[in-house]
Structures are given as C-alpha cells and as structure tokens.
C-alpha cells in the first residue's frame, strides 16, 4: 500500500509527460503539413488547388481544436 502510494505521483507525472509529448507531436505534425502542403500544392496543381488545400487543412485544424476543447470540458 505504502509502495503504491509512493509511486502514484511518479506515474501521474509520467502520464502527463506522455500526454504532453503526444500533443506536441500532433501540433508539430499540423505545422509540418502546412509547411510542406503549401509547397507541394503548388507543385501538384495551380493556385486554386493550393489555396483550397491550405484552406481545407485550416478548417480541419479548427474543427479538431474545437472538438478537442469541447471533449475536455
């Protein structure tokens, strides 16, 4: 019992650290998508395709962000 109590804060800290890293990776991947997307879109198609690609990614990001916040509440 004493041992499990002693390990709880460490487990909590580890869980939080993993959650932090997971979220950071998600955010970094969004940033990478935007960076590569704006360049690749220009290679693949014309201006309309590129702007549509970036616009759709922006909307997906916002929907993701809002949904995540609502779920947390």
């Amino acid at each position, binding site marked *: 019992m004493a041992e499990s109590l002693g390990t709880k804060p460490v487990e909590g800290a580890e869980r939080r650290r993993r959650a932090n890293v997971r979220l950071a990776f998600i*955010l970094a991947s*969004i*940033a990478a998508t935007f960076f590569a997307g704006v*360049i690749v879109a220009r290679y693949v198609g014309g201006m309309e395709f590129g702007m549509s690609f970036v616009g759709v990614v922006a909307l997906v990001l916002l929907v993701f962000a809002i949904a995540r916040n609502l779920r*947390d509440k």
Partner: protein
Amino acid sequence: MSSVTHDDVLGHGHDAHHHHPTGLMRWVTTTNHKDIGTMYLWFSFIMFLVGGTMAMTIRSELFEPGLQIVQPEFFNSLTTLHGLIMIFGAIMPAAVGFANWQIPMMIGAPDMAFARMNNWSFWLLPPAAVLLIGSLFVPGGGAAGGWTMYPPLSVQLGMGMDMTIFAVHIMGASSIMGSINIITTILNMRAPGMTLMKMPLFCWSWLITAYLLIAVMPVLAGAVTMLLTDRHFGTSFFNAAGGGDPVLFQHVFWFFGHPEVYILILPAFGIISEIIPAFARKPLFGYASMVYALAAIAILSFLVWAHHMFTVGMPTAGLLFFMYATMLIAVPTGVKVFNWVATMWRGSMTFEAPMLFALGFLFLFTIGGFTGLVLAITPVDIQLQDTYYVVAHFHYVMVAGSLFAFFGGTYYWIPKWTGTMYDEKLAKLHFWSSLIAFNVAFFPMHFLGLAGMPRRIPDYSQQFTDWNMVSTVGAFWFGLSQFIFLYVVLKCIAHKGEKAPGKPWEGATTLEWTLPSPAPYHTFETPPVVK
C-alpha cells in the same frame, strides 16, 4: 469567472534550497519560465529601440521634401526592416514574454510543459535578429522590397534578402515551438478545478493565438522557402520569367499575414481583459461571449486575406466576398469593445497607469478598427491602396493596440515580477506623453493618405510638407517618451520604490495574485485548489 483560492502558497517558495547557475550562465541555460519571460521582454524592448531608431531615421528623412539624410535604396531597406523588426522582433516576443511569465502562474502550473524547448525557443531569436540587422551591412544592402517581401523585387535583391529569409525561418521556428509549448501547457497543466471556462481571459487569448501561429507560421515559412528556391535553385514558383505567378506569393503571404495581425492583437486583448475588471472592481462582463468572440475573430481571420490585395485584380465575386467577410470581423470585435465598456459601467473605477493604458488602448484601437472598416470597402481601398492612410490605420492597431496593452500589462504585473511598486507619477507621465505624441505622429497620416501621399517613398510633393513635419515631431516625441518607461522599469528592478504587497490591486482575482511579491523562483509545485 469563479473566484480562485489555493492551499499552500508558502510551500511554493523554494528559492533558498534551489541551486542554479548564476551570472550569464543562468540566463543561457535557464529553463525557468520567469527567467525566459524576462529575457523575451528585454529582447523585445531592445528590438523596439532598434526598430524605433529606424523609424526616427525614416521620419527625419520625411521631415521635408527632397533627399536629406539617406539614399532611396537605404530608405527602402529601413522601411522593410522597421516592419520586420517591430513585428517579429518586438511585438511577438513581447507577447511571448507575457505568456511565459503569466500563463503558468495564472493556471497554477509549476512551469511550461517543455522547459528546455522554451529556452531554445528564446535563444533562436538573437541569431535571427543578428541576421536581420546584419543584412544592412552586406553588399547590396538589406532587403528593400517591404516587409511583405513581394516578388519580383524579393527575387532580384542581393544577399540581404537571403539573410532576411533565414531570419524569418528561424523566428518562425521559434514561434512554432513557443506555440506548441503554450498550447500543451494550457491544455495539460492546469491546476485541478481550473476548467477551460474558468481560465483567465489572457490565457484564452494566448491559447487561440498559439493555434493561429501553428496554422500560419508554416505557411509563411513555405512561402519564403519557395522564394529562396526561386532565387538560387532555378524554380519558378513566383518568377514570372519562368512561368511562375508573383500574385500567388501575395495570396500565400496574406494567408499568413492577416491572421498575423490577430496574432499580434489577441494577446493584447487578453491583457486588457485582465486590467479593466481589476480597476473597475467588477468581474468581466460577458466572459463566455469574450471567449467565443476571440474564437470567432481567429476563424474569420483565415477568410479575409485578399482584402490586402484588392488591386491585383480578382473576380467581382471575390472582391465582394472578401469585403463582406472583412466587415464581419467588426461583429466579434464589437462584442469585445462592448463588454469592456460594460465591465466599466457603474464600476468603482480608479485610474492607475495600467487602467490609463487600457483606456487609451480602447479609444485608439477603436479608431484603428474603424479605419480598418473604411479600408474594407473595396472601392475605397482601391483609392487608398499603398497610401499613408493605410500606414495610419495599422499603426493605430499595432502601436496604440498591441504596444499600449503591453505597457499597461507591464505596469499591471511589474509589482508581481519585481516585488516593487512602480513610480505612479512617472508612469502616468509616460501614458499622457505617449498618448498625445502618438496622435500627433499618426493622426496626420490619415490626412496625408486621403490627399494621396504614397507610402514607402523618401521624397514627396510639396503639398504634403506641413503634416509630414507635424508627424515627424510627434514621432520623435513618442520615441523619447519611451525612455520614461525604461526608467520606471529600471527603478523597479533596482527596488527603488515602495515594496509591493502580494496583491497590490484590490480588484485583481486571478491566481498569480495569491503568490507573494516578487513571485518566488518556483511557484505552484503543489497544485493549487481552484473552486
């Protein structure tokens, strides 16, 4: 927002037992959010002085018609670097400095989620600043195509442009890392009981700003990367000679550039939303609507980029869409202004320096907002494109908006940061001097723009002389006024003043005011209880 309490303030002060490097190494290796916040704020102030010096040179040249002080090429470099330095070197780092200092203390977290990355985010900035400023001294001079870096000029410029592109890359990486840190800290490290809808509005404003940054900074990085490959690797993204499209750069740039305006102003909204309730001694009116207004502004900011480029030629439907979408932003912004005024209504108001700056912000930002509405009207914008009216508009938003909020925020929180109350008389002098000087400098630019004076030129027709002289006098007055601010801050750091109590502002309710002043080096190692 509900009231907050916490259980064990004294348990957080571990300074006496904490060993960390001293001297220069403390600042190089620090992972403490307060140290890093301090470095961000000093860096931004130094860059503010550098960018301000460039502005003074520009205004000196424009004091009268003809070429007096600098050559036209150097003048163009000055206008370009003034913009880049003020946006990326002064305003954004200042906002991140406030975030570093305040967010962990306001949400009851011991530090930022990624403390080492936080240190790295900051230390990327000085090399970027060296690249930007150093570009003035290389063969061919600094970037001179304006802060927007439009091709074809930016494809043709010399080595200074490459240095600017790399500086933008580095500052962008720093911003993205900072944003990841802020989002993770806010979403994962809040004290128990601190739900999102109990969070101080400053933290909300930064959460939304950080999402904006993650969405648009990579777009700018992508745009300048394509610019770089056009310059050196034979691609033709924007180079018309190779079949590229220069207008595409403008679309991509402003897809970043317009949300960037809100990246600069939303943290300022957050600061004002903390100051006004504290000095009106009333809870913020319409907290939930303030949060939704912030989110609405952020979403709409993605849909209005082409109002910066009405003159490039686009279908009428496009012109109408971007005109109405831009006007729509006035609705959530109006909600915010209404709520700030409603918070003050029948409040027990006092007018210390933070409140004066908040009121100055409210008055002048509203003027900037209205001129923005004027510019949103497509036929009017086509007339006023690239005139001094635009310069007046964005300085009312950026200087009287962001900068006034940051001054107010500094006076509001400096007792907590240093443990010493600031000199109220000098702070009020700083406010009134800045307020009057700012209007002397920038209000005449509306007249100049309406009369047709183009921006980014070192010389002008004689009929513009009088208002340019007035504007230059105001600019120097405004610049010199900021040394009062510097003196007040240095006095606080030297503890030359009254000792600050834990909570110097009667109406302040957020978590940082439950800590002693100055805030201990480590805070909230035991999470507070928020009810």
